[in-house]
């Protein structure tokens, strides 16, 4: 099908333009949308998903996928609760959980590289298994061993939501990693053309394992913040988070066939989803309808990306 032509400026910044337009509409229709507090609120609401989405961006650019992150969020929070329950100080348990997350990500990478198991399959299996791990660690119930100061991590200092700043920090880190380091360049090369990268002497296997490990570590971090938010290791958190994170990455313009995409785009995608949810909630749109709108949005974003590609 022949795609309609867009004016160049709009074609380049289409997503930004729609986001601004959306904010303007909400600013006029939804009371309190534009307040500083509400904007921080938006970041707070999407932080736990957004942190994962930035790691997911790298994985998708490397032409891989990870469906296990939602379950890993739950398993990480439960592992933290379990360790603290068994007497480990929280400040020690946190890095242990992050490392465990990175190792489980690396496992997916090793399966992919050493045994050629598609990451879709491995992480589909882990999607189920990690949920089981979470249930096993907590005996099926929320485990609540945390000291009261732990609440601030996923909550607020004064009026300022901490996860929002973790989100921005992770964004800055991943943006730098993908844009300004040799590792980031290697990820793009591996995702864009694995054989060319290999023949250029890039260690493709190592790159893939590290990309999955990065996502695993970030997912564990999100799990820790989630545990703080609910002040418990709950085995039922994080359901559907993997699909939301993938949606944010795709809305942000990252190609599902690898090699193309930016962390900045994902930030836009994350904010986009946050703004929509927040705005619709303020407007009292019923939650069933919200789901329909969000689904339509993902499709619309992909169509916009196709338009931009055909005109590039």
């Amino acid at each position: 099908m022949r795609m309609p032509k867009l004016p160049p400026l709009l074609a380049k910044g289409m997503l930004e333009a729609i986001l601004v337009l959306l904010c303007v509409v909400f600013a006029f229709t939804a009371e309190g949308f534009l307040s500083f507090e509400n904007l921080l609120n938006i970041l707070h609401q999407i932080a736990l998903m957004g942190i994962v989405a930035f790691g997911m961006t790298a994985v998708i650019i490397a032409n891989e996928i990870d469906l296990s992150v939602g379950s890993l969020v739950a398993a990480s929070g439960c592992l933290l609760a379990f360790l603290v329950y068994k007497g480990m100080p929280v400040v020690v348990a946190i890095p242990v959980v992050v490392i465990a997350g990175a190792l489980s990500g690396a496992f997916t990478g090793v399966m992919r590289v050493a045994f050629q198991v598609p990451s879709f399959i491995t992480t589909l299996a882990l999607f189920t298994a990690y949920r089981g791990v979470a249930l096993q660690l907590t005996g099926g119930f929320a485990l609540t061993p945390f000291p009261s100061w732990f609440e601030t991590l996923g909550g607020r200092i004064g009026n300022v939501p901490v996860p929002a700043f973790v989100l921005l920090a992770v964004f800055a880190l991943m943006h730098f990693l993908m844009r300004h380091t040799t590792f980031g360049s290697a990820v793009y090369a591996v995702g864009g053309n694995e054989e060319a990268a290999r023949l250029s002497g890039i260690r493709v296997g190592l790159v893939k394992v590290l990309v999955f490990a990065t996502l695993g570590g970030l997912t564990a971090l999100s799990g820790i913040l989630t545990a703080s938010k609910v002040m418990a290791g709950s085995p039922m958190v994080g359901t559907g988070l993997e699909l939301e994170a993938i949606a944010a990455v795709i809305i942000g313009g990252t190609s599902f066939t690898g090699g193309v995409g930016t962390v900045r785009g994902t930030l836009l995608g994350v904010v986009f989803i946050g703004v929509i949810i927040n705005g619709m909630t303020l407007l009292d749109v019923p939650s069933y309808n919200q789901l329909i709108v969000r689904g339509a949005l993902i499709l619309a974003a992909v169509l916009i990306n196709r338009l931009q590609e055909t005109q590039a």
Partner: protein
Amino acid sequence: MKRSVADETAPAEGACNLEVVGIRKEYPGATALDGVTLGFAPGEVHALIGKNGAGKSTLVKILSGAVQPTAGRILVRGERVRLASPRDAFAKGIATVYQELSLVPEMTVGENILLGRMPTTWGGVKLDRRRAYAAASEILASLRMDLDVRAKVSGLGMATQQMVEIAKAMAGEPSAVLLDEPTSALARDETESLFALIARLTARGVTVVYISHRLQELPRVAHRVSVLRDGKLIGTRAIADATPGVIAEMMFGDAMHKTPPAVALARRKPVLEVRGLRRAGRLRDIDLTLHEGEVLGLAGMVGAGRTELLRAISGADRLDGGSIRIDGREVGRPSPARMKALGLGLIPENRKEEGLVLELSTDDNVCLANLKRWARAGVIDRRRRRAAVARTVADLDIAVSDPERKVSELSGGNQQKVVIGKWLNTAPRVLLFDEPTRGIDVRAKQQVFQIIADLSRRGIASIFVSSELEELLDVCHRILVMQEGRITAEVEAADVTLAQLFALCVQADSRSAAS
């Protein structure tokens, strides 16, 4: 009808299964076929040969209905036809078996043979497998092929799949079968059973049009051979008269090659030594030595193992035996990363699939093989890198408006220079060039040759693979000839003529005959 002088062995008027008369095909800016007139007799195997770009594949595409000629007539059994599509050509009696097989691996032999023509029952609703298998068995029996119609195609060897493909073509009872490079994927003993099958086809009066780069096998299968050059029919010969010398003259004409670069190359230090290299089914007992600043050519027909050799040396493919030494030191377990660290790089045959990351910019691609060079502790210094890319672009004369834009926007020649530039940025000692001039224009070709010559002067050695023998004579100091995975001859480029080199590439393999 006017007949070309060379067409001395043509069958009598009206006796052809398939005829083309004055066929022309023009593409914007190029004439692919320039008035070709040719008759194919019943029961003959007619080989079509010529260099890349001579017009063979265009003629095959026209006969198979895939493209339409600009002018000229096609006659099947004396009747003029228009071949609107491959399906139409098949219905009118011309079946084509392509180089890439078109079988569905997870279906059975019988289902594949009758694909798209499966008999049905229940008023066309239900496939009638019993009848289908009976029909397929009949076809196989008529070709005396002993094969289970219920066997899955994926479990069959390449040669058997090829035969299933031919049986599929025969299901339409064609007058002519076009075989496009049928033996390129087959081992030697497998080609024999293919030839036997071809003989059974011709015994039934079918015409076989046979396209192959493997000229040495023509005497075993073909009756006549026609040579195309630059879109024109140069001539047709009975196979008994088509000696390698005659064929070479027809294929290459009297085009003289330039004298090779007059480099008085005192044999300097060897940088790369390969001993006893083996790769099962591909490479056998390869020995070669490459000296500092030397340009070594690899000649041979398609499938001789040239690409496989370069890939093995560069660490791209696993080895089954033998040793590689660089500067006298043996390389354990070669991989692309390891060979790069030792100063060796491969400019691969397919630049789009293996050389470039098309989604990335020129800038990124030029830096791909040495990301660390412009980085400190893993952090890239963009400014230094941009300056380095600008130098590469200027040195190699890459025509690029903005290096930040996608490399896929560049022309083939400029893309090839990006791949070369990528390796020059690794400060290499040895570069392996696999068909670096394929699909690039004349000016870019000359520039690539110039780059190789410049490298040679700086002491960087190259191995150069090309199917264009003229290029090898122009560029190389020394040339090795490969056949069937082995090195069968070595010549100084200054000492041979084009025809001699060609004869070395196609002559019956004397060593294997002796062993």
